[in-house]
């Protein structure tokens, strides 16, 4: 694409146009934490998009919710009865703007569609393999209503799929200490402008439960300060 002949010089890829259009309007973007921004082509959760999260990293869902929630957005979580709500509060999610549907039952596509009509961010745990038709219909609903759909599970046709890998916990020894923070690599794979995988290394959660930049270098846990006793 880079070596297009001269007469195509004015032609742009459709995905570039989409990025330009989406970054043009601030209203169309729900913010994410600064550390996660490089993962998103638009620099945040674009309204109307579908951003899937690979299961096994609930704290990544909470980090995405926290970013949107802090800007005043309303959020709903469908089908995750085990979501740690204390962790959500610590991550920065405003619990008074969070509604939970722990057991949606067999009607869950209808429930998710109803929530997409009115709630800014809808997290939906995918209950096993779903028909591509249902997935594309729900994504289209999100696009039409300007909400963000975050499927927690495999989702055909997601604009972006975030995966947390290579988690390393700090703070726990053999019989002492406690879990303090985890370093995690988050990789985003997607379609169009996000086709090339991008990844960031972050602390999720850090010692307060929030998302934080990864420490620059891994240092020994204890540093002896020479002359401190003098």
């Amino acid at each position, binding site marked *: 694409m880079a070596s297009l002949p001269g007469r195509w010089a004015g032609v742009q890829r459709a995905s570039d146009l989409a990025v330009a259009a989406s970054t043009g309007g601030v209203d169309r973007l729900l913010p994410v934490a600064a550390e996660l921004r490089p993962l998103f082509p638009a620099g945040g959760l674009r309204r109307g998009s579908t951003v899937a999260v690979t299961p096994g990293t609930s704290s990544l869902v909470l980090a995405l919710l926290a970013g949107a929630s802090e800007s005043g957005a309303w959020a709903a979580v469908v089908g995750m009865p085990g979501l740690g709500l204390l962790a959500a509060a610590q991550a920065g999610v405003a619990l008074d703007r969070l*509604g939970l549907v722990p057991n949606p039952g067999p009607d869950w596509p209808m429930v998710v569609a109803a929530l997409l*009509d*009115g709630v800014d961010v809808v997290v939906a745990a995918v209950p096993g393999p779903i028909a591509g038709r249902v997935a594309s219909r729900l994504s289209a609903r999100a696009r039409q209503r300007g909400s963000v759909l975050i499927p927690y599970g495999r989702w055909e046709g997601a604009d972006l799929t975030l995966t947390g890998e290579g988690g390393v916990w700090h703070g726990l020894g053999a019989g002492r200490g406690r*879990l303090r923070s985890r370093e995690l690599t988050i990789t985003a794979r997607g379609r169009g402008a996000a086709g090339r995988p991008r990844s960031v290394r972050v602390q999720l959660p850090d010692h307060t439960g929030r998302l934080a930049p990864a420490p620059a270098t891994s240092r020994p846990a204890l540093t002896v300060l020479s002359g401190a006793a003098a």
Partner: protein
Amino acid sequence: MTGPVRTLLVWCPDWSVIAAELTTGVPARAPVAILHAGRVVACSPAARAEAVTWGLRKREAQSRCPELVVLEHDPARDARAFEPVVAAVEQVVAGVEVIRPGACALAVRGPARYFGSEERAAERIVEQIGQECAVEARVGIADGSFAAELAARAGRIVPPGQTRAFLAGQDVRKLGRPELADLLRRLGIRTLGEFAALPAGDVLTRFGFDAALAHRLAAGLDERPLVVRRPPPELAVHEEYDEPIDRVDVAAFAARALAERLHERLAGHGLACTRLAIEAVTADGQELCRSWRHDGLLTAAAITDRVRWQLEGWLSGVRRGAPDRPTAPVRPTAGIRWLRLVPDGVIAQVGLQPGLWGESGEGRERAHRAFARVQGLLGPDSVVGAVLRGGRSPADQVRLVRWGDERIADEPAPWPGRLPPPAPATVPPEPVAATVYDGQDRPVTVTARLSISAAPARLAIAGAPPVAITGWAGPWPIDERWWAPAEARRQARFQVELADGRALLLALSAGEWTVEAIYD
């Protein structure tokens, strides 16, 4: 200047005792004493017969009457119990002033003309109170409410113009000012007539302003007009159905009409309600009642939804989306004949306050509509919100409330033994069984003195192949609610890190290991 208003005063003797009987069921015929700050403030006739009097200490009263039932003084209980009496009086006459719980006054001119005479009006009111509330009341009529009260205690109707003469014979202690009465008695003034004979100016200079007021009362110059209470507007709406409702769709239709009527009536008074009571009577005479709370104002649509949910719940007898609620739903035995909506928690409607930048109020409305829609699909208990509260385990620190209900946050309090952040991002609703092995493949145990049998080396969750433990910390004990055997919990908690990168919160309770939470 007009003279004192001709006043009828209704007085219920020993009202505190009667109120206690009405609300707590302590029979007023038994010797009962009401105590405030350790002193008797009211007692029943039976107690009075045993020489229990006003102002006695509790021990003294009990020594005079060993079988005395002692109750704490509760002004709110007295006032609440008096409300039906006032309502009963208001059914007969208009313009009632409540002087205190147990006494109310009204201008007698109108009722006397309507019923023919003052005596007949008095009889009618006493009869009405007796029929409606089964309470004994006495009536006195005189010029001014002070004289009327003394007349009621004496059970008299003082003819017009003779109030001063009636008062003249009364004891000064009946002024209700013990210090002044004590002083006057020591000065040799024993009756109101003697007090009233003193020059008004001298009373004011010698005894002060309050005594000057008492002096006017004693002279029968009680010119204070009655402060008439305005009966609260009737807000509840009800509907009777000729055909008993036993189908959900018919119920929904009925609910809609009734809810809109209620909303219109509230809006007409400039009010909105935050709580709603739904009452229904079935064709068999079974009565059902349920109260709904809401954190915002109940709009017409919200009222409709709640009534519809409630009727659906009653008519279908089951509630979807609430498998964890063991409360057996009350199923009516027949169709619903009679439906009533009572607004509760009524506040002045000042209009919807939009957000400062316009958007937030709208977003809230949209989100609430979406959640209400899901509640309509799956049942009212299917959507919940979370409130943080005190507790030690991650699950304890969150309380789920039905969406739309009031969220009352707990006061922050120290909870020694709660784990510091970060909190686990996954808390399974039911803990998962697990086994922890040491280096020799023996299960790890913890003694009562919290010494661990060996360092944990491998963890098997729910029968899966064991995974090596690379880091662990604990045991951290909790011993909760030991005073309630059914809820008691004694646990030793551990944090472990596994070779595959997972981190877990484990708990050991009565020899059983469980995975309480997952840090993922």
